[in-house]
């Protein structure tokens, strides 16, 4: 046990009622372990996060990260196909998985005394999956149907895909997580096996265990099941093609007869939360709230939905949770009889006015209060806390960054917001998308 203690880093959040209790360890093979205690219910959430997502896929194999996620529920050397989930269910638990640009995560929610069984099975499928051509053929149809359901049947999702593809000129964030259909259709055993062999390893994983558990017990189990798996020495450094300086705005009109109501989207490239550098991201959170957070009190809502009847819906949004450059987004749904160009002009006027006006102190205070309160409300959802840590740690942030974030949010000033607005709201780094049911609506 001594060598364990050497690698042990314990970080206790302040013992107030407004912070989660978190303990972290690093196993000798490089696997990170995060334990979040919540003893209100005898439940545990066991999540294994791999630091690999769709933006890490090889060229031409889009969708392989997500496809592989599906295949992890098939047979291993000791588990039959489907046995993993069936075993979780037989023990009264639920399980699932999800894939994003930056991570792939597997989780179970179950009675706390079943944690060891979860670790036993999850650690088994880290290295011992036995993919067959039959599984590949059947499950490829399932993910194609998933794409049908999420994207092909949804004009808004298809439009979004086009807009994001245009926003990123070099980065893989321009490729959809689920994959382009023509590449998904070609994914085979070689693609999934190569991806699995390279990226599914303890030194590329973060274990998050949250709920009615004791940190030392979790560590002992993690050592027993995950600690014995050798690190992958071929694991590549996580270097992705970055965006070049963008020099011209892009405009797209997506036409689909299934669109019921024309609307417009504007996406700007925006900085993400980075280790030790989260200030700009924090200011962008305020910027989104001020410009389009609430339809009643934001600048867009007031100008387009109250002072005038230009729009029936307005929104500005930003999430700093991303490994690489992310987006700051606007959406406007014009009112009946208002053209998209008039709605866009009104939106741009609001943005221009924001740049030249002072920020209302009462609104700053209100947003600050809401952000502080959101930390309290978040404590009610231990699975949500687990997801927050898992996502952050697979997107290059540290536990210290996660725990510093609420305080950083509280210290944002109007000057910070004005500075980041001037930097980010640059049309040369933007895509404006119109979504219409016919060419006439785009006139």
């Amino acid at each position, binding site marked *: 046990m001594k060598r364990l203690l050497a690698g042990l880093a314990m970080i206790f959040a302040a013992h107030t009622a407004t912070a989660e209790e978190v303990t972290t360890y690093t196993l000798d093979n490089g696997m990170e372990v995060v334990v979040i205690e919540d003893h209100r219910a*005898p439940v545990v959430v066991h999540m294994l996060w791999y630091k690999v997502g769709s933006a890490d896929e090889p060229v031409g194999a889009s969708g392989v990260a997500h496809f592989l996620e599906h295949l992890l529920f098939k047979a291993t050397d000791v588990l039959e196909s489907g046995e993993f*989930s*069936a075993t979780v*269910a037989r023990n*009264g638990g639920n399980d699932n998985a999800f894939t994003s640009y930056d991570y792939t995560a597997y989780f179970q929610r179950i009675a706390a005394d079943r944690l060891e069984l979860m670790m036993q099975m999850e650690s088994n499928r880290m290295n011992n999956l036995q993919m067959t051509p039959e599984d590949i053929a059947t499950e490829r149809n399932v993910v194609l*149907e998933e794409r049908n359901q999420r994207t092909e049947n949804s004009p808004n999702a298809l439009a979004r895909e086009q807009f994001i593809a245009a926003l990123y000129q070099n980065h893989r964030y321009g490729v959809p997580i689920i994959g382009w259909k023509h590449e998904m259709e070609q994914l085979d055993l070689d693609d999934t096996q190569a991806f699995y062999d390279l990226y599914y390893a303890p030194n590329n994983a973060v274990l998050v265990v949250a709920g009615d558990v004791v940190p030392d017990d979790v560590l002992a189990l993690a050592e027993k099941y995950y600690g014995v798996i050798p690190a992958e020495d071929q694991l590549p450094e996580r270097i992705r093609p970055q965006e070049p300086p963008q020099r011209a705005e892009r405009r797209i009109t997506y036409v689909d007869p299934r669109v019921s109501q024309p609307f417009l989207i504007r996406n700007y490239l925006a900085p993400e939360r980075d280790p030790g550098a989260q200030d700009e991201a924090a200011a962008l959170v305020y910027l989104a709230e001020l410009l389009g957070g609430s339809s009643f009190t934001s600048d867009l809502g007031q100008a387009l*939905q109250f002072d005038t009847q230009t729009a029936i819906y307005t929104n500005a949004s930003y999430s700093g949770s991303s490994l690489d450059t992310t987006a700051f987004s606007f959406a406007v749904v014009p009112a009946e009889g208002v053209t998209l160009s008039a709605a866009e002009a009104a939106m741009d006027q609001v943005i221009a006015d924001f740049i030249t006006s002072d920020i209302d102190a009462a609104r700053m205070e209100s947003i600050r*209060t809401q952000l502080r309160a959101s930390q*309290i409300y978040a404590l009610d959802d231990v699975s949500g806390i687990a997801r927050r840590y898992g996502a952050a740690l697979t997107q290059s942030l540290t536990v210290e960054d996660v725990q510093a974030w609420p305080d950083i949010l509280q210290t944002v000033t109007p000057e910070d917001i004005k500075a980041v607005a001037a930097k980010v709201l640059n049309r040369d780094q933007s895509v404006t998308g119109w979504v219409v049911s016919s060419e006439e609506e785009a006139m």
Partner: protein
Amino acid sequence: MLRIVLSLCMIIIASSARAEIDIKEVTSPGGINAWVVEEPSIPFIALEIRFRGSASLDLPGKRGATNLMTGLLEEGAGDMSAQEFQTAREALAASFGFRAFDDTLSISAQFLTENKTEALALLRQALVEPRFDQDALDRVRAQVLSGIARDAKNPNDIAGAAFDAAAFGDHPYGSSIDGTVESVTALTRDDMFEAHRNALTRDRVFVSVVGDITAEAVGEMLDDLLGALPDEGPPLPGDVAFGLEGGVTVIDYDTPQSVALFGHAGLKRDDPDFFAAYVMNQVLGAGGFESRLMTEVREKRGLTYGIRSFLVPKFHAEMVFGSVASANATIAEAIEVTRTEWARMANEGVTPAELSMAKTYLTGEYPLRFDGNAEIAKIMVGMQMIGLPPEYVVNRNDYIDAVTLEDVNRVASELLQPEDLHFIVVGKPEGLESTQ
């Protein structure tokens, strides 16, 4: 006189987890009941309020009135305009949600201990002193009309609307609570006040509170919050028989993946066979990857991303219902497999191993639901609405465990009628035609 009628510390015991919750039942001096769980560890309170009736109380020609009225509850109250009301709410960092459903008007609130008095005073104004200003009415009406237009082009909503209309006809269940373009366009401020008067009444209110507050304090605040509402609402609609016969209806829509909804008559929530049916459906199509429908349609054949079946015991009608989506070229096969599985379950029932697996899942999963203030509050108010006592949380797993193989298989053969299943399919399905 404030009474705490019942305080039970309940331990829900499954084969694995034990959930302990202490439900206190409290009655205000004015006679309003609430269930309370005191949970002081996080400094906030989750409050859930339900009113029975909701959109089923829409008056003739006023379809959509309750839904629109509910959307307007956050749009100004007392002496505050919509923006003033929302500014006040944001400053308190409270969240209020107002939603209308077929039979239920739901209010979900969360607020901090530190300003709970102010938050409750604000919520009270929304509930008992709404303004229904004309500009707010017109603004929210435009949003509702936009939603109606969107639903008319969404395959899932097209299928849902067709299914409801065919199954329930003129009963409120037969049409969307949103109303039609015509009915919503015609709604007036007076209609809003009338819908409010009819839908928010003390005889149909249910309340649960979980969080950093005592049961005694809840009892004291109930009369302030809800006491000014009218005593009684108008009569509820009657029951309606499931009116759709077996068959297929294809609704032509140009989209790559066909969406299918299917169902037939079901059974009531208080039917003695409900738990047997519930366990049966767990094996048939409610379970995750393990259900027969998921195994046969998705896992073995790759025909869909998801297929599910549900028992739907509503207040005035009952059905067994399901949904599946598959590419236009394969939806016919997905439907064929679904019919086959429906018949296999009706004819053969479940195996002892399937029964055991379903029971251990259902009893193990139940305590996991009680894992947050907001979750517990939602469960408790839902129990009150269907007439379950607080002790149900303790006894529920016994009801599941008491189900026998004979029960399940008898109920499967009685309840599941493959020839009665009607599929409403929206898309361009290949090899599938409407019956008659």
